């Protein structure tokens, strides 16, 4: 037990001082920030996709709304981009309600298909809107005007901003997980019919999870815009973005608190590495690898990597003694 605590403490310290360990190599600093940003998106997806089991493949919609809200705040209102973040979150919650109310009533596949279609719909629409910069997209402030523009040369400030947001998001998820809503979401995922027979308003809870998830995905989009200073329909609303959120969560363990973070820790470096090794021409191979990883997870490891390390507390032993005779004893 103490060894466990010690390892946890060491990990925590490592995460906190990571940017100082990589002062000499900005590439690794940037990589750290990217992992955290991806983990925010995937952890946000995890609320509805992992805990509630409603597999959205269109979360890029909310990411894009967040990114565009931030850049629009700058381009059309001359405000610091981050001012657009809360607006984006509100808008995303609204859009989630519009998509979710009709589709979450239906079986899981409908929801996945509808989210794909809505994602593509929004991407095409955004590329036809001059106000959003059309297919070329929009850029944030070229030069930081004040510190509130959150435009920095070094990746270190981003690292700590992303870390704070991720910590808040995971803290909130942990709190939900242990409360009534966490129980109810798991019940809905296991058997919606049984959950409803026990008084669980399945539709309402799925919608809450979806809206909450949308809000934080949108925040991830706004943060992305602050760091990269630029957004276009493909990088904001592209389907691959949605896929990455799903895959990171699923690789680490969907419906597990740290699953998405673990997935991001593996996939972001893989992607950066293959992009830098293979260059623009090799971008396709990155996604061939992605596709293969996804198929392998689905086929052999549907519960994700973390399930391999799960200590099964009290699970196996009683399982044996439980078999029919034991449960037949009345009192």
């Amino acid at each position: 037990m103490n060894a466990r605590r010690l390892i946890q403490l060491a990990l925590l310290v490592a995460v906190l001082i990571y940017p100082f360990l990589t002062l000499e190599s900005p590439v690794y600093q940037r990589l750290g920030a990217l992992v955290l940003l991806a983990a925010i998106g995937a952890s946000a997806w995890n609320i509805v996709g992992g805990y509630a089991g409603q597999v959205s493949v269109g979360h890029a919609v909310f990411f894009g709304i967040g990114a565009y809200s931030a850049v629009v705040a700058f381009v059309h209102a001359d405000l610091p981009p981050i001012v657009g973040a809360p607006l984006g979150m509100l808008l995303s919650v609204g859009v989630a309600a519009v998509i979710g109310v009709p589709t979450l009533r239906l079986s899981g596949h409908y929801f996945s298909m509808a989210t794909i279609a809505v994602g593509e719909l929004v991407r095409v629409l955004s590329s036809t809107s001059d106000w959003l910069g059309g297919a070329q997209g929009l850029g944030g402030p070229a030069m930081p005007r004040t510190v509130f523009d959150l435009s920095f040369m070094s990746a270190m400030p981003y690292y700590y901003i992303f870390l704070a947001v991720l910590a808040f998001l995971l803290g909130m998820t942990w709190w939900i997980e242990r409360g009534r809503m966490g129980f109810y979401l798991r019940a809905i995922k296991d058997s919606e019919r049984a959950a409803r027979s026990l008084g669980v308003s399945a539709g309402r809870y799925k919608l809450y999870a979806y809206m909450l998830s949308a809000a934080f995905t949108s925040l991830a989009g706004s943060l992305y815009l602050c760091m990269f200073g630029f957004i276009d329909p493909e990088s904001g609303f592209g389907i691959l973005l949605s896929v990455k959120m799903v895959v990171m969560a699923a690789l680490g363990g969907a419906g597990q608190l740290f699953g998405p973070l673990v997935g991001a820790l593996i996939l972001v470096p893989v992607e950066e590495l293959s992009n830098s090794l293979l260059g623009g021409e090799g971008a396709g191979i990155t996604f061939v690898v992605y596709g293969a990883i996804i198929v392998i997870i689905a086929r052999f490891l549907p519960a994700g990597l973390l399930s391999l390390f799960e200590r099964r507390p009290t699970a196996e032993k009683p399982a044996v003694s439980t078999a029919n005779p034991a449960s037949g004893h009345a009192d």
Partner: protein
Amino acid sequence: MLIEAQSVTKMFGAFKAVDNASVTVEEGDILGLIGPNGAGKSTFFNCLTGDMPLTSGTVRFAGTDITTAPPEERARLGLARSFQVPLTFESMSVLDNATIGALLRHHNAREAQAKAREVLDRVGLGRLADAPAKSLGTPGRKRLEIARALASEPKVLLLDEAMAGLTPTEVREAIELVRRIHAGGVTIVIVEHLMEVITSLTRRVVVFHQGREIARGTPREVTSDPHVIEAYLGRRKVRHAGES
């Protein structure tokens, strides 16, 4: 009057699965719904729980019209059920399964777990509280269904073939359990095709055949009714002969 179902009809396409059935349940009743396979009793049952919308008719619960209320609304009013094929929450422990039921009246997760533990003890699953629910066999799962429903502190418990697939010993134990639950003040409606369960447990029986009610009364009255013998027992004999 706790449950008042009036002229309930349920059609699947042109097929009348339930035809103009009216059943009332008084507080403190143990009511049996019986009939051969395909008689419409399970369909009628699912109309009471809100899992299937009625084609026509009304259902009232403790004076409130619940004809169009969804299952979760009915659960909140005090109508709990078990499923014929147990719908266990597979990824959870036995305790967490029961906790889902208890959370209906106890919003705090810790209080709900305390309530769930108490109910598990009552139905004889206390020792297995921390085991994963998927490790339970059929009798355990059926018991867990009942525990989960009880944890929601219902006024009425609707049991859908809660004893099907159990050995005779297990059936006797399950009957004992239902008796205790009833003695604890819960009204019981039970769908069953095992005669032994009906005769030893219920006070009143409604017999379905081909979607219609063909008889009602005490188990003794019903089993000597010629219509019932012809429709239900007769067919059972034939089926048994065919099976062996």
